[in-house]
């Protein structure tokens, strides 16, 4: 009897060994292929862009008008500077809409005082249903004529963005996080794909960068630095991998599923047709894009989602483990919710590359990867306790995964080096390589745990965003 049990345990262990090995090789292959495609797409982009003079848009009467929408919730510490920074972006035909999402602090009062705002009789065209709007404000001072401030009842980020869409008067909308720092020419760069593609462009996204430890002056980034804290440095590497290697490739394959909520530009008519942001998910950015693309497929309207590899927007990454876990928990729930909401598209050839490639790979390698890793580890611990662990195999497999992770990250650093090289000093680059060596031991287990917890919270029905406190950017000292 005992022998039979031992036999079954051994066979099961071998089976899982093989399964996990195949899964790991699948992930490795997908990353390698995406990296190759991304390298090719990046080269092509840089070649094309060498002929671009963005000043042409600045002075042109042909340039499309853009509405910049920034929701704000309890942002009293930085709101005045952030709005000033948005008002000084290089773009002529642009309105800046700040949506105060029922802040509990004095965000609204600060805005009213700083920009000499007064309530106006604004007629809202409620094309997307939202929570009630308390008032719409314009500046008395003509210097701030671009600014529109909306005061509304609290309804979350998605609801605030929907209000902004209802208020906006232009055909293109750019949705941003108000605490992000945009590059002065970021709007010019995001507008370009809408003007240069033969197919209808429904959305454009750009690379988001980590601003921790960078020096900021008057809402502008003046010096790029590698963060002092390990946790923030690792996120730089993560963003390199996600944006420069992942999204660039997916955009090239026409399978991009996500434009970061921190900064993206959309065709307003398509957003409204799709129904605007969904306030029942914490992954509203991904969900909106998938819904827009689904709509275009269902209506057989050819479209494109573009991606710009230029660094356009700088954001503050979580600096403590608790905040990081909350963020990753939310990301996991957002991904899972979106995938479940649009499960009909998965492996459905009606939705082209999205249905046949992007979504299945997201399910397999984004949503399930942390679960496979977590349960694999639990299974291994059980085997070890029972004395059935195959240690040579464990160490060799761990070596395989670890060295792949290092290679993949060094490849991502190479992408950054050969594209925009924001970290110019050699010690910055060496510090990033050093961080890459430690990441799998210190950072990765935390993100896996947060993802597992996210799945658990999803099953138990948790809907909250989780509080995100920010330390603020380093200010330039005079």
């Amino acid at each position, binding site marked *: 009897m005992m022998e039979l049990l031992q036999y079954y345990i051994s*066979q099961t262990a*071998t*089976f899982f*060994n*093989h399964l996990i*090995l195949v899964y790991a090789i699948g992930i490795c292959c997908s990353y390698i292929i995406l990296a190759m495609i991304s390298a090719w797409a990046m080269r092509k982009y840089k*070649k*094309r862009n*060498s*002929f671009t003079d963005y000043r*042409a*848009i600045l*002075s*042109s*009467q*042909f*340039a*499309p008008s853009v509405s910049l929408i920034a929701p704000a919730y309890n942002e009293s510490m930085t709101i005045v500077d952030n709005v000033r920074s948005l008002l000084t972006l290089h773009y002529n035909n642009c309105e800046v809409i700040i949506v105060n999402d029922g802040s509990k602090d004095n965000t609204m009062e600060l805005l009213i005082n700083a920009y000499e705002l007064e309530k*106006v*009789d*604004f*007629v*809202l*065209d409620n094309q997307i249903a939202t929570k009630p709007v308390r008032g719409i404000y*314009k500046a008395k001072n003509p210097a701030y*004529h671009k600014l529109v401030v909306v005061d509304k009842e609290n309804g979350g980020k998605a609801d605030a963005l929907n209000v902004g869409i209802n208020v906006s008067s232009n055909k293109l909308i750019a949705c941003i996080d108000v605490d992000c720092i945009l590059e002065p020419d970021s709007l010019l760069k995001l507008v*370009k794909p*809408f*003007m*240069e*593609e*033969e197919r209808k462009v429904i959305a454009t996204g750009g690379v988001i960068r980590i601003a921790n430890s960078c020096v900021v002056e008057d809402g502008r980034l003046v010096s790029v630095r590698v963060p002092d804290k390990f946790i923030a440095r690792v996120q730089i590497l993560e963003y390199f991998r996600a944006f420069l290697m992942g999204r660039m490739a997916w955009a090239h394959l026409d399978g991009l599923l996500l434009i970061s909520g921190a900064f993206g530009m959309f065709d307003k008519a398509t957003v409204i047709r799709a129904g605007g942001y969904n306030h029942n998910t914490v992954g509203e950015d991904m969900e909106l894009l998938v819904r827009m693309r689904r709509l275009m497929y269902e209506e057989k309207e050819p479209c494109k989602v573009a991606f710009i590899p230029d660094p356009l927007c700088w954001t503050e990454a979580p600096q403590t483990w608790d905040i990081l876990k909350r963020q990753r928990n939310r990301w996991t729930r957002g991904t899972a919710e979106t995938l479940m909401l649009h499960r009909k598209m998965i492996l459905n050839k009606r939705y082209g590359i999205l249905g046949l490639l992007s979504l299945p790979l997201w399910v397999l390698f984004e949503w399930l990867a942390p679960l496979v890793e977590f349960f694999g580890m639990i299974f291994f611990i059980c085997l070890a306790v029972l004395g059935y662990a*195959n240690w*040579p*195999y464990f160490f*060799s*497999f761990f*070596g*395989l995964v*670890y*060295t*792949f992770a*290092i*290679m993949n990250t*060094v*490849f991502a*650093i*190479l992408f950054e*080096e*050969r594209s925009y090289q924001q970290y110019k000093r*050699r010690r910055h*680059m060496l510090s990033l*390589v050093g961080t890459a060596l430690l990441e799998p031991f210190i950072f990765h287990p935390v993100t896996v745990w947060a993802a597992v917890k996210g799945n658990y919270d999803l099953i138990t029905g948790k809907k909250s965003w989780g509080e995100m406190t920010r330390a603020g950017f380093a200010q330039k000292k005079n």
Partner: protein
Amino acid sequence: MEDTFTFILPFQGETNDRTLVNFNLLLAAVFLALAFLLFLFILISRWRDGYRVSRRLWMENISQEFITTYLFSDDDLTPEQSKFFQKKYIKNDSLRQIFLENLILLHKNLIGESSDKLRQLYIDFGLYQFSKQKLYSDSWNVIAKGIGELAEMDMQQDSKLIRSFVNHSHSILRSEALVALIKLRNNKPFAFLNKLEEPLLEWQQMQLARAAQKNQLLAIPNFSKWLKNKEDSIVIFCLRMITYYTQHDALPVILDLLIHPSAQVREEAVATLRHLEAYEVTPKLVEIYENETVEVKLEILRTLATIAGPETIELYESQLQQPDKRLQLAAARALVFCGEEGKEKILSIKNDLEHSLQTVAAYALDERL
């Protein structure tokens, strides 16, 4: 080694465990080696970039010094001096390209005799041939670069060759060719519109308009002659250029576009009529209004607000009753601008706090919105 690559099935016992371990270790070694090579590549590329930047800076200084001396020295450059400089400094294509870029940069900022001298230097140093050769490259970006150089140095004799790229499959090369032709064919800058078979993308339209503004064109064509083009984007571009150059002569042809099958063209045509302040088209706009799309209706209301008088009040009043808020607002705005009678109507609605359109009227009257 043979064992390592043996195909493995599950449940095959200890031999396969060893094979798997070897397989994992082999892959790990490959990844580690690749990581190390990539790291080395990063270091080498940093060193190489540094070297390239310093070499470029060096060549830029040499080029600028030479060109400034050539331009502003009282003595002419002797053939020996010229040969010496070329032999010593312009040793290969990359250095030649840096010299050329500096020459072009200066040429952009100079006019008259200095500009002519630079053009002569461009020819004497064989840079003209260097640029022209690029037009025979297989790579679109090299051709586009060559076209840009020839256009900047005003090599009009090559406009025919450049014209052969106006229908090229690559949009950027096409764009560079079109912009170059505007510069080079000053007497017929937009003649390429007759030959163009590809759509004019918004980005290209912007580049062309910019090129037309930057280069003082001797002959501005009557853009109405392309308003019957079968390519909608060309028609839209021409309507925009008609607006820019205020070509009133185009009015009769624009009126024909009000029944164009494309709503986008009709919308642009209405906008052009507004910019041209074509008061006489008011009855026509009122006539077509009812059967139009919402977007074109909005454009018509905006246009009528600029060009029409009190005769259109009835139309605006009917639009105030529409369920579409955008139409209500545009009609209210038009009422404000159509004379005293219209403004009074809107004011009376605004002052009637019970009126269902009170906020619409207030919005229309608010100049900040």
